[in-house]
């Protein structure tokens, strides 16, 4: 085998490893949606799918992609996702809080009031 073959092999393994890590994060994020108790804690599980899952799968695909153009397109998707998904998550949480859904907090305390300064 030549050096180029070795590089190709490393690229393939790195890509598949990232894909596997990302898929694992996706599965655990989906599990969290069922196992955690209320809306807000479930949103944290969705955060794992949005970050670990998306970054793992998309960066794996970027490494495995056949041409630079495909890689660049996937990078655009990843960049848009990293700006859009926290915004969407915040919009959901804000809408829930504004419409009166109160989170179950540790020790059954109510959410703190806004500081006055």
């Amino acid at each position: 085998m030549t050096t180029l073959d070795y590089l190709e092999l490393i690229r393939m393994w790195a890509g598949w490893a990232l894909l596997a890590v990302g898929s694992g994060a996706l599965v655990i994020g989906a599990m969290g949606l069922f196992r955690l108790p209320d809306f807000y804690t479930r949103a944290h599980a969705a955060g794992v799918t949005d970050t670990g899952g998306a970054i793992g799968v998309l960066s794996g695909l970027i490494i495995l992609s056949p041409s630079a153009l495909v890689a660049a397109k996937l990078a655009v998707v990843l960049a848009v996702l990293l700006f859009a998904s926290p915004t969407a998550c915040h919009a959901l949480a804000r809408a829930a809080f504004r419409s009166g859904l109160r989170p179950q907090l540790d020790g059954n305390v109510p959410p703190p009031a806004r500081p006055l300064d």
Partner: protein
Amino acid sequence: MTQRLLFASVLAALWLVLSGHFSPFLITTLILSVFAVMALIIHLGLLGQAPRPLAALGPLLRYWAWLALEMAKANGAVIRAVLQPSRISPTMIWVRADQESELGRALFANSITLTPGTITVLVEYHHILVHALERDGATDLAGGRMGRRCARIDALLTGRTP
């Protein structure tokens, strides 16, 4: 002006990456559409007002690298919490957002939501209501490391001394 040129080149790069063709017809439509979109955006006043958009580029890239590490750590913590739901201790706190510009506060609020385990619920001027899955996440945010980093980038963008 730098900001307009920068935004136009980002638009052009996006067009080129998404099309992948370099024929004269597509290059002409590229130029026409970038001009049309820039005219619309300037007319509507949608372009931000950061006076020195390039000054923060290096620190912003370093911040994103740091944020990626924080995200990896936070992902681990939330994954442990999902596998063992009895560990969670949901907490809500108000965190101070000392960033001067709206862009700086948006950067901070988005970074909080992007790290799993903490979510920005409300943003009111210089206060952010955060929901944390575990109490450690809340105390970490209250410690203000992330806020200080965002404030430094915000200061570079607005051209004030940090």
